[in-house]
């Protein structure tokens, strides 16, 4: 499959340069804005729209107050996203129904945008909402479009008004007009008029559409547009706005992998709201449009934004500073360890969090290897200790350990392992906090870092060693585990013994932000072989 997901990589690269900077300089912003411009063009956003957009982002990035919880790179992403959402969702609204039924909804768009299929979906959706829709087959152009609408209507359980056979025979204006009258007579409360596909440049057909529009005076004119459309979206949208003055937009074929930059172009050029998204071939694959989802889709940022948001919410800088201090003065206790872990847990399931990283969807297998309960178990052990023990792990003698093991439902060995791990981590943190380089080898085989184990498998695959020979794999894994880089990059980032290491970001770098820094994200991503 095509590899278009490289925007994240590019932005990560651009952001790397921003690393460690507390404030954005114009040069930093320009570099990032260039990448965003390219990304938007790759996503088929119209050029003029891109220009306006990047200019606004630039302005805001330079003018905005510096957020405490986010680093500069994350801030730019945040700004970009805010802007995208505000354009896409600026004017969210629902369908408007006429005071005197029937409500007339007319569909218009290019050939092959998916109007007929959409007519069926809309009808089914309306029926589900308690309305009584009727379809009108006013596409008399395309061979057997009428038949298609009849089949679709049957599937949706909605009547179809099709007096003309189509295939170039009949007058669509008359059909549409009669259809509305018929609906009135038979007391249907909504009428959906399916029209023929037409090009924006075809003035004759455009006039016909305008005539249909005049004849039925629709309450809503929906412009149906294919999410895959390129730069032409703007020209076409303008032509249709001039021709039939549509009141809303429907984006179709969103189940493909097109980024759908057209959505942004159309929304910003015409100022009309995007009302629905169509996401599949089944008649039920139809939903209201969510601007925020579309924004991340256009930029291909996965749910990195959600991640940023959560980091913003969960980590407060003060807390991180306190911890850093504790590391430095050797007063880091098991209580702090527990607090750190709980903070980490507050961010939601770690599996979910990893899944949110762009490109991480492919690593489900590795994620499954990560045992979330490991954290729960560790928590249980610590909570079975007395406050004094938590503060002074040295108190823990044999009988205390046995009591703790019983209290937490674990074995003494596991209690021992935790205490050892804590001591190691605390020692290492102390070194880091004082500006030294941590001794990593001890970190390798941390039991909690089951996740790192998964990662190793992926690396192995990349090297081409597909051998099912467990001994060989084990040997390789051992070798990899020994490699310090590996365990620092990922295992420590999210593994168990790492709760300490996690704090190290804050400890080592005084003005670091609480959340996962882009450095960590980048390292993680690289590690995952993206």
């Amino acid at each position, binding site marked *: *499959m*095509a590899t*278009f997901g490289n925007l994240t990589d590019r932005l990560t690269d651009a952001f790397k340069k921003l690393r460690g900077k507390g404030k954005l300089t114009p040069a930093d912003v320009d570099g990032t804005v260039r990448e965003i411009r*390219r990304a938007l*063009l*790759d*996503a*088929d956003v*119209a*050029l003029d729209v891109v220009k306006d957009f990047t200019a606004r982002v630039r302005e805001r990035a330079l003018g905005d107050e510096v957020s405490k919880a986010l680093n500069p790179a994350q801030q730019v992403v945040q700004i970009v996203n805010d802007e995208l959402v505000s354009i896409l969702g600026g004017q969210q609204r629902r369908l408007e129904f006429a005071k005197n039924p029937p409500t007339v909804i007319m569909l218009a768009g*290019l*050939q*092959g*945008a*998916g109007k007929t299929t959409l007519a069926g979906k809309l009808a089914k959706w309306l029926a589900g909402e308690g309305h009584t829709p009727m379809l009108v087959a006013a596409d008399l*152009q*395309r*061979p*057997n*479009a009428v*038949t*298609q609408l*009849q*089949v*679709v209507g049957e*599937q949706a359980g909605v009547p179809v008004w099709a007096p003309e056979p189509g*295939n170039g025979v009949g007058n669509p204006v008359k059909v549409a007009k009669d259809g509305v009258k018929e609906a009135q007579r038979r007391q249907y409360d909504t009428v959906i008029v399916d029209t023929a596909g037409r*090009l*924006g*440049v*075809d*003035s004759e057909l*455009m006039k016909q559409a305008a005539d249909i529009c005049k004849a039925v005076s629709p309450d809503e004119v929906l412009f149906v547009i*294919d999410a*895959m*459309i*390129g*730069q*032409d*979206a703007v*020209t*076409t949208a*303008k*032509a249709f706005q*001039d*021709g039939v003055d549509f009141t809303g937009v429907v984006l179709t*074929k969103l*189940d*493909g*992998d*097109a*980024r759908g*930059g*057209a959505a942004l172009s159309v929304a910003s050029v015409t100022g009309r709201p995007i009302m629905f998204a169509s996401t599949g*071939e089944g008649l039920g694959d139809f939903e209201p449009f969510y601007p925020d989802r579309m924004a991340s889709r256009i930029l291909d940022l996965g749910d990195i934004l959600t991640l940023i948001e959560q980091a913003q919410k969960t980590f407060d800088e003060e807390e991180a500073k306190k911890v850093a201090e504790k590391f430095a003065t050797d007063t880091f206790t098991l209580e702090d360890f527990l607090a750190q872990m709980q903070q980490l847990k507050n961010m939601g399931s770690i599996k979910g969090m990893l899944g949110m990283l762009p490109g991480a969807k492919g690593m489900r297998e590795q994620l499954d290897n990560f045992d979330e309960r490991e954290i729960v178990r560790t928590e249980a052990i610590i909570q079975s200790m007395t406050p004094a023990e938590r503060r002074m792990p040295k108190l823990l003698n044999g009988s205390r350990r046995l009591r703790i093991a019983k209290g937490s439902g674990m074995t003494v060995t596991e209690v021992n392992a935790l205490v050892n791990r804590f001591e190691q981590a605390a020692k290492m943190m102390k070194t880091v906090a004082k500006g030294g380089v941590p001794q990593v080898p001890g970190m390798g085989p941390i039991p909690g870092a089951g996740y790192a184990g998964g990662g190793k498998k992926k690396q192995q695959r990349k090297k081409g060693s597909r051998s099912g020979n467990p001994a060989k794999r084990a040997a390789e894994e051992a070798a990899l585990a020994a490699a310090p880089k590996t365990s620092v990059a990922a295992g420590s980032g999210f593994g168990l013994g790492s709760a300490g290491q996690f704090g190290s970001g804050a400890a080592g770098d005084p003005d670091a932000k609480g959340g996962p820094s882009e450095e960590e994200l980048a390292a993680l991503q690289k590690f995952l072989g993206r």
Partner: protein
Amino acid sequence: MAEHAQPWSLGGSLRGMFSRKTIDDETWDDLEDALISADFGPDITDSVVAELRASVERFRTTDPADLKRMLRESLEERLARLDPTLRLTARPAVVLVVGVNGVGKTTTIGKFAKFLANHGRSVVVGAADTFRAAAVEQLATWAERGGAQIVKPQAQGQDPASVAFQTVEKAQREGIDIVLIDTAGRLQTKSGLMDELGKIRRVIEKQTEIAEVLLVLDATTGQNGLAQAQAFIEHAGVTGLVLTKLDGSAKGGFVLAVQEKTGIPIKLVGQGEGIGDLTGFTPHVFVQNLVG
């Protein structure tokens, strides 16, 4: 709708630039904007602009007219690198037509059937789009207009591979020259449907070689066209591209990226809903329409 309804052309948006006296920074910006607006995509645009900058440097020209000529030559050369000839020498020559939803596969088949019939070939079309409502009827209407025979599925939702098989069988039995097989539109991300294409291929290949697999691309498509091409090449072994809806305001610049990245030539061009609106691909004409 007066001015918007004018067909957009690269030539139009370049006119300002070429009417200037010398080549300056603004010229390059305009050129870049124009190429991007024609859906060439950022990568190809960068490469074309870099190439032209180098030529301008080399020939030390300052005349925008030279630049225009160089642009035309550059695009034409890029497009002409691959051979656009259709190979339909086998008997029967089987042509499989694939693409995403709504690009104009069925319409293309109708026009292609007519085109072949005009050249004195007998044609049978296979309605292997058993999925979309009324697709079979749509194809039947086109076949009738194009003077081709048609093989329809016996039941709604029949396995498309079996329809393809029956079509080829009929051609072999009755000595029909050309077999055109219509498939259901599928988005390249639906792996189940993409595998189905692989099956259709395998089934046909048991009977005879497949002469051409044509991927139909909509000229209004943007950069996603490349993703489509790559997926269909992988699953269906595409041998040629068909660019449809060129009569609209979109010029389909993305096909250049597709052609360069995949090495698959554009073979046919569709320019309208009339049955005669299908022509072979000539780089010269294409570029002429584009640049003017």
